[in-house]
Each structure stands twice: as C-alpha cells, then as structure tokens.
C-alpha cells in the first residue's frame, strides 16, 4: 500500500453543459485521516465526491485510491475500497428490508452466505439497527435511515468512508449520536458538509472549496479562525466558536 490512501492531482471536470465544476483540484489524504470538505453551495463538493468512487471520470487529472489509479479497469476495486454514504438515504436504500439492503454490497462481492450474514449482523450491531432488520427502509425515521445507510456501507468493510452531508435532516440528538458513532470509526473519512460544528468534532483537517478550486487546506482550527477566508468562501465560524449571544447581551 502506498503512503497516501487518496491522491487527487489537477482534477478538472466539466459537465456536458459546459459548466466547469472543478477547475484543477489537488490534495493528498493519509491513512486514518479525517478530512472535511466545506464550501458554498455549488462550490464543487459533490462533484468532487462523485470522482472518488469513479462515478464521474475526470476531464483532466488523476485520482488515485490506495494502490489504484482510477480507470475504468480499476473502478470495481476502487468502489470496494471507498464506501459512499449519500446525502439522501432514500437514494441509497433501495432494497425492501434493512437486512437485504445491508447485505446487498457483501453479496455482490461474492462472499459466502455465512460471511455475508456475519458481516451484516456486525454492521447492524455497530450502528445499532439490529432490531430493525426486517423492516422496510422507507418506513424508518430519517435518523434510522441514516444509520442503516452507514451500515450498508460498513458491511463491505471499506477503508475509506466518503459522506455527503451526513448530519442533514437529523434532529439534534440523532446528530449527536451520529457524531459519536463516527468518532469510533477508524476509517479514513472524507466528509462534505455545511455543518461546521460537526467538522470541529470529527475532522482534524479541512479543505475549503470555492468556485471549483481549493481555496484553503489545513488544520481545522486554523481555518475556522481565519475570518477573512471564511467570509470569502461564503462560510461562517462554527456556532460554538462564536461568542454566546445570550452572555454577550447580559454583559452589555
């Protein structure tokens, strides 16, 4: 295995309608690192994520995942390594029961029945949805769906977890539980989100995107303290790093 698990070099991507979504993006991510990708709406975060598991092919540039450069020949191998959790769990959970959904990936990998069963039980246990295994996913709450979506990816034992807005649509408690859950994972994590407080909890490193380019890449705290950079990228300091409005008023 190479030292870098994800390497993106000069990645450019243009949608068929000529919109330039990515205009030369480069970064490297190490094993076990947890990296946030933040930026305004339309900054190119989702497009970038779609390159990481080979759904989109770069117009220019190189994506390397583990030992493989992403090409049509290696795309299956890459998808095995990269577990992708989608923003809308309804897109991700397409089977009719929770169990079948979590088993979908492992079955496609051609594992034996016992192995599949063990992996599914393990994944459901990890995210705490074992009691839901016979239920149809579309009848679950958003929080439960999100957990099942994560389990459906964990069951394939990926090295890298890529998540698009994992906390969107969750109530505060479910969000807190999700954060605690993700903290226990040893995977390399790449999280695209607008929830900057979640970034503070989960990611030691942050990549800021703006207009299809990387405008900053560094330690999370350093970036969130750079007021000027945040304003330029249509972002704000995480709430907990802003002064408490109640206390400020009472002092005044």
């Amino acid at each position, binding site marked *: 295995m190479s030292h870098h698990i994800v390497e993106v070099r000069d990645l450019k991507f243009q949608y068929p309608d000529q919109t330039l979504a990515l205009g030369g993006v480069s970064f490297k991510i190490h094993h076990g690192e947890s990296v946030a990708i933040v930026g305004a709406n339309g900054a190119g975060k989702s497009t970038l994520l779609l390159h990481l598991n080979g*759904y989109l092919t770069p117009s220019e540039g190189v994506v390397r995942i583990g030992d493989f450069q992403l090409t049509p020949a290696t795309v299956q191998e890459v998808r095995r390594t990269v577990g992708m959790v989608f923003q809308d769990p309804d897109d991700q959970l397409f089977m009719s029961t929770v169990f*079948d959904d979590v088993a979908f990936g492992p079955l496609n990998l051609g594992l034996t029945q016992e192995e*599949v069963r063990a992996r599914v039980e393990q994944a459901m246990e990890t995210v705490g949805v074992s009691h839901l295994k016979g239920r149809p996913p579309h009848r679950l709450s958003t929080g439960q769906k999100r957990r099942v979506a994560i389990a459906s990816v964990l069951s394939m034992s990926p090295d890298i977890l890529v998540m698009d807005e994992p906390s969107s649509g969750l109530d505060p408690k479910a969000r807190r539980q999700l954060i605690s859950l993700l903290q226990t994972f040893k995977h390399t994590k790449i999280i695209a989100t607008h929830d900057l407080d979640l970034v503070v909890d989960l990611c030691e490193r942050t990549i800021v995107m703006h207009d299809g380019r990387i405008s900053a890449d560094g330690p999370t705290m350093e970036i969130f303290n750079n007021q000027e950079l945040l304003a330029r990228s249509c972002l704000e300091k995480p709430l907990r790093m802003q002064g408490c409005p109640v206390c400020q008023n009472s002092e005044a």
Partner: protein
Amino acid sequence: MSAKIDRAFYDIGHLDQLAETDTPLHRLDPRAKLLTTIVFIFCVVSYDKYEIAGLLPFFLFPAVLIGLGNLPLGFLLRKLLLVSPFVIFIGIFNPWLDRAVFWQLGPVNITGGWLSFFSLLLRFTLTVGAALLLVASSGFPTLCMAMEKLGTPRIFTVQLLLLHRYLFILTGEAIRMIRAHSLRSFSGKGRITFRVFLQMLGNLLLRTIDRAQRVHLAMLSRAFSGEIRVLRKFRFGYSEVFFVAGFCVFFLTLRFTGVTALLGRLVLEISR
C-alpha cells in the same frame, strides 16, 4: 384531493404492515401460497360465463386465509371496493346486450346479461380478494423472491421489487407537489388545471429520472454488477405440501366434478 391520495398512500403501506405479523398463514412458505392462489384463480376464471352457484364454494378459500392469517376483513373489502369500478364498467352493459331470459322468478325475468354480470362480480371478488390476501399474508418483496424461486425471469422480479420500493417515495413526492400547489392556488380552490397538471407530470418525470440516476449510483458504489442478490432461505415442508395439495384438490374437485350441484340436490333431498 390530496387527503384522498394521502389515504391511499398509507393504505398500501398498511398492506405491507399486515405482512409483517406472525400467524400460521404468514409462516407458510410464500411459494406454497403463490402456487395455491394461482391454481385458485385459474379454476375461478375458467368457469362458464353464466356460472354463479359453482363459484360460491370458492369463497371458502379466502375465508380460511382470513381466519388463519387473522387479517382484517373490513380493510380488505374496502380495498376491493376501491378497484370495483373497473369491473363494474366492464360488466354493466351485459344486462342490456344479453336479454335472453334464463329463469323467471314470478314476475321478474332473470336474463343472461344479469347472470353474467353477477358472475363477473363474483369472479372479481374472488380473484382480486385472493391476490390481496396473498400480498397481505406474504409481503410484496417476499412474493417477488418466491416468484423468482419458481422460475420467473430475474429481470422481471427485480423490476417489480424496485417498483414497489420506490412507489412510496414517488407517491410522497407527488403528494408534496400537490400540497405545494394547493397552498398557492387560492382562487382555484385547489383544482389543478390541465396545463398545470402537465407541468407537474413533467416535473415528476424529471425528478424520477434524477432519482433513478442517484439510485443507480448508489447501487454501483456497492459493487452492483447487474444482478440483485438476496439472502433468504425458503423451506417447503410438510405443512406447505399439505396446504398446496389440500386446496388444489379441493379447487379441482369443485371445478371438474359437479360437487356443488350434488350437494345442493342432497340438501334438497334431506329437507324434503
């Protein structure tokens, strides 16, 4: 309007919920129920178009299923009523087209048209009722698996599965669209004009395509290679054999021997 759609939406879900209960009927292998229902439907529809008396004993099958499966009769009847207009439209002209008099009950002439119309209604109740019971006792996804195990081409069952899976999400999307429309249409009192309806339909189609693309992406990222695999063990044991054989013999006897007529004559003899 949207309240009605909402209602229908939850009712489909309710059918699935019924399938999650645990009764002797639900525990039977779905293949057994599927096979028996198919034989049942063939027997029922193969009768002559004026048949009424011969169809009546077939009601025993749904009755037994409802009893074994502890299923709510009222709910199923309401479902039947919901689809009944289709059949009524098919048969409603029979009494005018076919005026041959079959029996005379005092002053009332019973024509062939009325007989065939009632026969059609009976058949509809039996077959659609049996199909509803099948879904309520097994669940749609499980039935698809059973169909596949019985040799239905996989592409067909997968289509059915995905159709069922996304029915809810698409209906949800349509409901939200209608809701949004009715919240902003004041003068029209929530009526959807044809022009707006077309636009909404187009919009729904585009959303569906987008959704399909995202779902496909989700499948690809989980190593999908064109075949949906499912882990499920079906067991065809003694109770299944007993269920299938028992009912099939019952149906075929009813169909091919004049048991109903015999019984009728027997009852008449005794009462005399």
